[in-house]
């Protein structure tokens, strides 16, 4: 008889593993992906494909180069690629899109130790780097049907109407415009327990409250920019958001406040990326403040 395997308990595991979680995120992103192609055409598809390919390839090459185990099958690089593409204009030069992926994967993720070790969300950080570089306005000029158009959040832009913003047929980054698709994805993630409600609800709720106080157009503030994409898919990134539910609420509120500060007082119309990036950096401190107390462990 063969030797028996002797391992410590437990001897069973829950179904979800890192790959299945990332797969669920991709499934949740699918409606917005389809919407982006419908709204912006085949160019949107190209940007996403290039971002994903560049992300996966740079992860593979980097890990090979530094002799780390190759982890591209965990699908996290694919998620990063899709998310980055979702916050780019559909007509961005493809080399800029690819460069963004390389920055996200190599600089933000791998140089800090790979999955689970990055202090900031790779897609968001890469986007912010691209924004700062500017590329002659390639990152900030949005168009629809080939005509240069301001996003609903831009100063002086007209409200395109609730229906348009819900379905997404307005200018913006390619994955952020269709609110309906993003909400469907968010519900999927909640049902699959990939994310909890704390961050999205705290984030979106804070934006709504501040908008009302500041007498802003609520529909534009909630649906006209990158809020839903950010609150559902980016701010909920495990690695860069707090662990406990209380921490998640604090983090969500912080994201909301910072977003509105940029939107109301900042030099740019949109503040989601900056807000999440800043809160990413605060996450270790929030974690420290919101540690669980052991059951029955009041006195050491």
């Amino acid at each position, binding site marked *: 008889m063969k030797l028996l395997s002797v391992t410590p308990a*437990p001897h069973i*595991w829950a179904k979800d593993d890192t790959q299945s979680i990332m797969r669920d995120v991709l499934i949740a992103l699918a409606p917005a992906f389809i919407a982006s192609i419908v709204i912006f055409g085949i160019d949107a598809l190209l940007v996403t494909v290039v971002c994903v390919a560049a992300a996966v390839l740079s992860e593979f090459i980097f890990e090979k180069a530094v002799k780390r185990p190759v982890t591209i099958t965990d699908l996290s690089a694919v998620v990063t690629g899709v998310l980055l593409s979702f916050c780019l204009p559909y007509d961005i030069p493809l080399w800029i899109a690819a460069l963004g992926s390389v920055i996200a994967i190599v600089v933000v993720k791998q140089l800090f130790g790979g999955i689970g070790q990055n202090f900031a969300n790779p897609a968001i950080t890469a986007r912010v780097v691209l924004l700062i570089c500017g590329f002659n306005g390639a990152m900030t000029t949005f168009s629809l049907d080939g005509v240069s158009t301001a996003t609903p959040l831009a100063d002086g832009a007209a409200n395109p109407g609730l229906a348009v913003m819900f379905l997404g047929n307005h200018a913006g980054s390619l994955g952020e415009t269709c609110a309906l698709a993003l909400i469907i994805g968010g519900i999927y993630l909640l049902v699959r327990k990939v994310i909890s409600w704390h961050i999205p609800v705290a984030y979106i709720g804070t934006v709504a409250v501040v908008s009302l106080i500041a007498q802003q157009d609520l529909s534009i503030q909630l649906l006209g920019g990158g809020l839903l994409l950010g609150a559902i898919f980016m701010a909920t990134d495990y690695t860069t958001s707090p662990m406990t539910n209380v921490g998640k609420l604090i983090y969500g509120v912080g994201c909301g406040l910072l977003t509105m500060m940029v939107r109301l007082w900042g030099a740019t119309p949109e503040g989601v990326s900056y807000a999440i990036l800043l809160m990413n950096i605060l996450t270790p401190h929030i974690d420290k403040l919101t540690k669980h107390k052991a059951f*029955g462990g009041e006195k050491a």
Partner: protein
Amino acid sequence: MGMGKGIRLAGHKNTASCTPVQMTAPARVRIPLSLLGANTSTILVKKGDTVAVGQPIASQGQGIGVPMYASVSGTVEGIESLRMPNGSVVDCIVIASDGQQTVWDGIEVPTVTNMEELLSAVRKSGLVGLGGAGFPTWVKLNATVDRLIINGSECEPYCTVDYIAMRDYAADMAEGVRIVKQMLGIEKAIVGVKHPPQGLAEAFQGMEGVEIKQLREYYPVGAEKMLIHETTGRTVPGGKLPKDAGCIVLNVNTAAFIARYLRTGMPLVSKTVSVDGSAVKTPGVVTAPIGTPVGDLFAAVGGFKGEPAKIFAGGPMMGIALPDLDFPLLWNNNGFVALNEKDAAKPATTACIRCGRCVDHCPMNLMAFEISKAYEQRDVEWLRSIRADLCIECGCCAYVCPARRDLVTNNKLAKRFLASQPKKEVSKQ
């Protein structure tokens, strides 16, 4: 902070409707002289001695030990050493069975009229906690409390012998509860159960101060601290025992055994266990003498389907993997599971993605990922500050971890590491 939420598990209670099969005596039994490590008992038999079922073969020794009894009739073959799953090596008395199962003629029915007599009778019976931990029951009973909690939760998958005891021996159980309650002067008994079998409530009819409490459906609702909180609302302070919260917790089989022993005088010489798992042909329930090779238990229900790749005593969440099929059946075992190659494979460990599931599901509200980190650095103060010592080793953290990290194993190592450290240093001025 209160209790955490634990996890939901598939029950796999395939043997819940089985009737226990009485196994014929195995050719040979090995009875280890100690379950918990330190062994101070004296061996009362020598090679070549003839022994009968229920005959003492080792004294109770000092401290908290209990005596050991022959579980089969036959001839003492000698003393062997056996490596226990925790790494310790203990002496075993080996008895070759004559197949007769002759009962020792020195069996006496004890008389119990007060707490002292109950404690000494329970100690003499060789009883240890039958739910799994195997702590000597007489030590637990030596306490002044106002709540007796009977654990019928049986939250490990596959395990069914507690349910079967409540179904078939509810009267014994009720009698055990009555005796303990009366002798110890306990105000109230609470039977915590997830799925009460028919007739359970009837067994307690007419008994005052007994409540049958339906437990919530989660793992590990049957862990002592969880169960005490669920049934009484009390919290056992960190590092303290149930008695510090005014409670004694007994497994249903332990309670039933007390009644049976006081009626018959037959000490703990056999055990009923469930036998199940993907490598088993037909799952079943077997009653067998202590010390029976585990392989014989599997054979008694029809053997294996293919070759087993992993066998563990207990359930899949906390069960202890056994090195071979010769390992003896012990007093605290309640079931064995054999897994096939596919189910035995341990998934590969990957990097922590900080998903927070270990934090979210820990019933003790500990933060397992942080305990692992602090343990990797052997940081005593850090480990103390996050109360690594309070881990109940239930395995929820490792179960839910999508990166399949050995979280509960690290917790156990961290606990042992902490225990090995000198007591708190005097803080430097």
